[in-house]
């Protein structure tokens, strides 16, 4: 075929551009020329122009102005133009473009063209970019072509039908009979297309699957013919006769034999034959063997055949070719749940693959190794896995760490081994473990009560060496805090005794507190640990007190709060300190996680060991106990509130001249008198005070108290209130509307405010009353309600 000279010249021009800018310039000029050509009605070089545009499109430049030209070229009677037009349609139009519908008619016409090549162009394009509507329109045409006598067209129609079925499920019914009859073809291309079509139909419809089960003998016969036939130059690939067709037939047999005894029986012999006779020196043979193994393992095959299949996989594992090893492991992964013992035989090879330099092979080996861990091989497997963890690529670390934890959880031979393993993981890959590891480990440590001494010594030493791995540091701090007394005692059976003195321990904790590598959570752990040590050590309690008070002014809010609370524990509640900070009881394991999100999501594959168990975060109990105490004391303060506020308001009535002082007194925010009241209105004998109490984050209770400082009674006393727009107001019933003289009885009105948008609260209050027969009405604005706790 003669090359398109204009196209090649343009390609040469673009390639000779030395910079990106130059290339853009060339392309812009060419596109302008192409656009001009498109506008001309009829010219000789139309196909060349469109080809140029397609090249420009492949370089990544916009080419949508060529869409209509494609439509026009497809309708052209010239084959050369049709060919490029359809190519353009496949490259520029897809079902999301509106212009694609315009070619439906052209395709329809071309499907019944006299030339098979024009028909094939239409079929190809429909199979590439046909939308659901187009498929629905043209499906009857395709069905007709499936029954034509031309093999060239039949094979293309078959794959076009596959595309239609994928787009519109219901049309599968239409193609089933034609597909059935195509199985008796001799032409491999048609046969292949038929098998693909039947596979697609069976995957989508169980009834069709049932019907096609009857074709199993026919398929077996075809397959036997391929396997046993002599050399056929047309279809031979490395000694295998048409491996493409063989693989497709095996795949179809897999679907038909799945969960069905009868069908599986019919194919047993064939599968055994293929498995033994296929030459496995080249990729083509291995491809067929691979598909055979997958089929054997997926149908109800007899046990001898299964053993044969697993042995083939074992042979694959020893193959020099990495690709073969990779797919062997992928297949073994699928059956490790059902044929566990068979796979265990190959454990050695799989573990060796952990050391393979190829990342894909490593990944597969890791997954398979984790699946093969069992109670009998846990120690040796864990050694290999820990080795792997220290050398593995970063993207596999998290998976390896969590797999190791799960395996250790399930099969650990002793608690000490378990703790050692977890510590080892934390030191090597501490940054990649999941969040719930820390509470889990802590929970585990509390249960191993006889190992507390050993654990705390080990963790202390690890802490001294490296404080960058946050989970490790957190666990170490927690343990030092809890079991600090054991650490200082020095003697421990399982580990060489080393004398540790109190200053060293506090130094270590302080280093953690001050280090920039420590995250806020870690520092929280360290501070709490320091506090706990105050009951476990004897000499340096002052040092602890000073550390804690320094952090009372820390910028981090969490730390500051803790430090303030611990300070309070030192100052006011010293009698409770020992009780608050005493040793924690053994924690219960929770099977459903409350604090962390990952619960059932942990079960990735059913063969993986059990999910990570959630535990309660341990640092909450001591802090919350302290809080509870303060709240109790706070409550006792609350009971004192009314008395103080009434004392305040009585102050108001007796000395109206001393307003300023009272104002200041009302705004006194010392904790013992938590409810401030402010005088709001003092005129005409009415003294109105306001006090607030915070109910929740957004709601507030305002109490307005009015009293009469004159000698005459006040009647019809009413209050009205207005607040900013976003605040909601609810006025409760007032206690009364009569204010007797000399402030003997007060009227209170409660107003409930809800401030969801947390705007600045203002209130306008209208007071209206009658005194000595004169009606008074006044408005007062309160610009800011007093700070309430």
């Amino acid at each position, binding site marked *: 075929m003669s090359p398109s000279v204009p196209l090649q010249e343009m390609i040469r021009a673009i390639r000779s551009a030395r910079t990106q800018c130059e290339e853009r310039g060339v392309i812009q000029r060419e596109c302008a020329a192409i656009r001009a050509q498109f506008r001309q009605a009829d010219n000789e070089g139309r196909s060349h122009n469109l080809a140029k545009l397609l090249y420009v499109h492949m370089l990544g430049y916009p080419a949508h102005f060529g869409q209509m030209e494609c439509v026009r070229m497809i309708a052209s009677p010239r084959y050369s133009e049709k060919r490029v037009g359809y190519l353009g349609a496949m490259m520029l139009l897809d079902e999301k473009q509106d212009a694609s519908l315009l070619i439906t008619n052209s395709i329809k016409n071309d499907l019944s063209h006299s030339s098979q090549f024009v028909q094939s162009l239409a079929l190809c394009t429909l199979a590439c970019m046909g939308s659901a509507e187009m498929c629905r329109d043209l499906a009857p045409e395709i069905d007709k072509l499936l029954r034509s006598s031309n093999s*060239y067209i039949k094979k293309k129609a078959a794959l076009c039908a596959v595309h239609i079925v994928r787009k519109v499920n219901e049309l599968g019914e239409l193609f089933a009979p034609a597909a059935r009859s195509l199985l008796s073809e001799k032409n491999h*291309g048609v046969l292949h297309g038929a098998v693909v079509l039947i596979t697609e139909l069976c995957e989508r419809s169980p009834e069709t699957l049932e019907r096609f089960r009857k074709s199993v003998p026919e398929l077996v016969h075809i397959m036997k013919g391929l396997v046993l036939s002599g050399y056929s130059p047309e279809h031979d690939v490395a000694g295998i006769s048409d491996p*493409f067709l063989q693989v497709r037939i095996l795949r179809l047999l897999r679907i038909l034999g799945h969960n069905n005894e009868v069908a599986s029986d019919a194919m047993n012999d064939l599968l055994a034959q293929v498995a033994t006779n296929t030459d496995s020196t080249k990729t083509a043979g291995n491809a067929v063997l691979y598909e055979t193994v997958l089929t054997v393992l997926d149908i109800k095959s007899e046990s001898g055949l299964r053993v044969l299949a697993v042995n083939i996989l074992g042979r694959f594992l020893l193959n020099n070719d990495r690709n073969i090893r990779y797919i062997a492991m992928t297949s073994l992964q699928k059956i490790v749940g059902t044929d566990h013992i068979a796979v265990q035989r190959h454990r050695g090879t799989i573990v060796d693959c952990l050391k393979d330099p190829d990342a894909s092979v490593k990944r597969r080996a890791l997954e398979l190794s984790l699946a093969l861990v069992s109670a009998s091989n846990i120690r040796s497997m864990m050694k290999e896995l820990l080795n792997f963890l220290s050398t593995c690529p970063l993207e596999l670390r998290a998976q390896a760490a969590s797999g190791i934890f799960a395996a250790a959880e399930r099969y650990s031979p002793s608690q000490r081994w378990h703790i050692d393993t977890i510590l080892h993981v934390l030191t090597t890959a501490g940054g990649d473990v999941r969040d719930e590891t820390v509470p889990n480990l802590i929970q585990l440590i509390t249960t191993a009560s006889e190992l507390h001494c050993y654990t705390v010594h080990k963790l202390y030493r690890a802490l001294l060496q490296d404080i960058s791995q946050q989970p490790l540091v957190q666990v170490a701090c927690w343990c030092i805090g809890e079991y600090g007394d054991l650490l200082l005692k020095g003697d421990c059976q399982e580990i060489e005794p080393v004398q540790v003195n109190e200053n060293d321990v506090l130094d270590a904790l302080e280093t953690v507190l001050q280090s920039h590598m420590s995250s806020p959570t870690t520092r929280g752990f360290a501070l709490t640990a320091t506090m706990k040590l105050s009951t476990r050590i004897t000499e340096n309690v002052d040092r602890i007190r000073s550390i804690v008070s320094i952090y009372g002014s820390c910028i981090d809010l969490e730390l500051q709060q803790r430090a303030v609370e611990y300070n309070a524990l030192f100052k006011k509640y010293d009698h409770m300190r020992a009780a608050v900070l005493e040793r924690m009881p053994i924690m219960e394991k929770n099977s459903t996680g409350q604090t962390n999100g990952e619960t059932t999501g942990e079960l990735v594959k059913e063969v993986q060991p059990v999910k990570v168990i959630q535990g309660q975060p341990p640092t909450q109990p001591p802090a919350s106990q302290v809080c509870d105490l303060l709240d109790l004391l706070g409550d006792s303060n609350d009971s004192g509130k009314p008395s103080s506020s009434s004392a305040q308001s009585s102050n108001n009535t007796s000395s109206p001249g001393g307003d300023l002082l009272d104002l200041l007194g009302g705004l006194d925010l010392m904790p013992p008198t938590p409810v401030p009241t402010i005088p709001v209105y003092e005129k005409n004998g009415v003294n109105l005070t306001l006090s607030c109490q915070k109910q929740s984050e957004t709601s507030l209770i305002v109490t307005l108290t009015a009293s009469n400082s004159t000698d005459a009674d006040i009647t019809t006393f009413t209050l009205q209130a207005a607040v900013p727009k976003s605040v909601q107001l609810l006025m409760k019933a007032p206690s009364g509307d009569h204010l007797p003289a000399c402030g003997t009885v007060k009227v209170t009105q409660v107003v409930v405010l809800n401030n969801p948008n947390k705007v600045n609260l203002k209130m306008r209050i209208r007071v209206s009353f009658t005194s000595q027969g004169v009606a008074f009405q006044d408005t007062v604005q309160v610009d800011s309600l007093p700070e309430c706790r």
Partner: protein
Amino acid sequence: MMRFLLLFSRQGKLRLQKWFTPLTDREKKKVIRDMMMMVLARPPRTCNFLQWRDLKIVYKRYASLYFCTGLEDQDNELLALEVLHRYVELLDKYFGNVCELDIIFNFEKAYFILDEFLMGGEILETSRMAVAGSLEEADTLQEVKDQTVYYSVPQY
């Protein structure tokens, strides 16, 4: 089925792209970028299979070109290697000792060859000779300048 087939050079220039599922331009660009990044980063003599999102990626290097395809879960990776090899053989037979320049300057023919071999993400014709034969006939048809007379084709 194959979801896509890409050919790109060692320098990251795309030479051919065939998409078997509808994707937006943006998605296509993302796939191309990801494929180039993953495949070009692979050291030599490593496994030809990768995992990307939910697809199996099979790639093979021939001289200066990388042939890269994305397969679905049920597809056979080893067979995909054979498919890529067959496509290279077809190109070689057509162009006679094919090299990257042939594919650059005759990209539309590379597409025509591909369309005779694969369709809708599946293999269309398993015989080399049949593909070569139909390509030859189609090219002959294209040569015929007369637009009303079509080459009459014998029925198989």
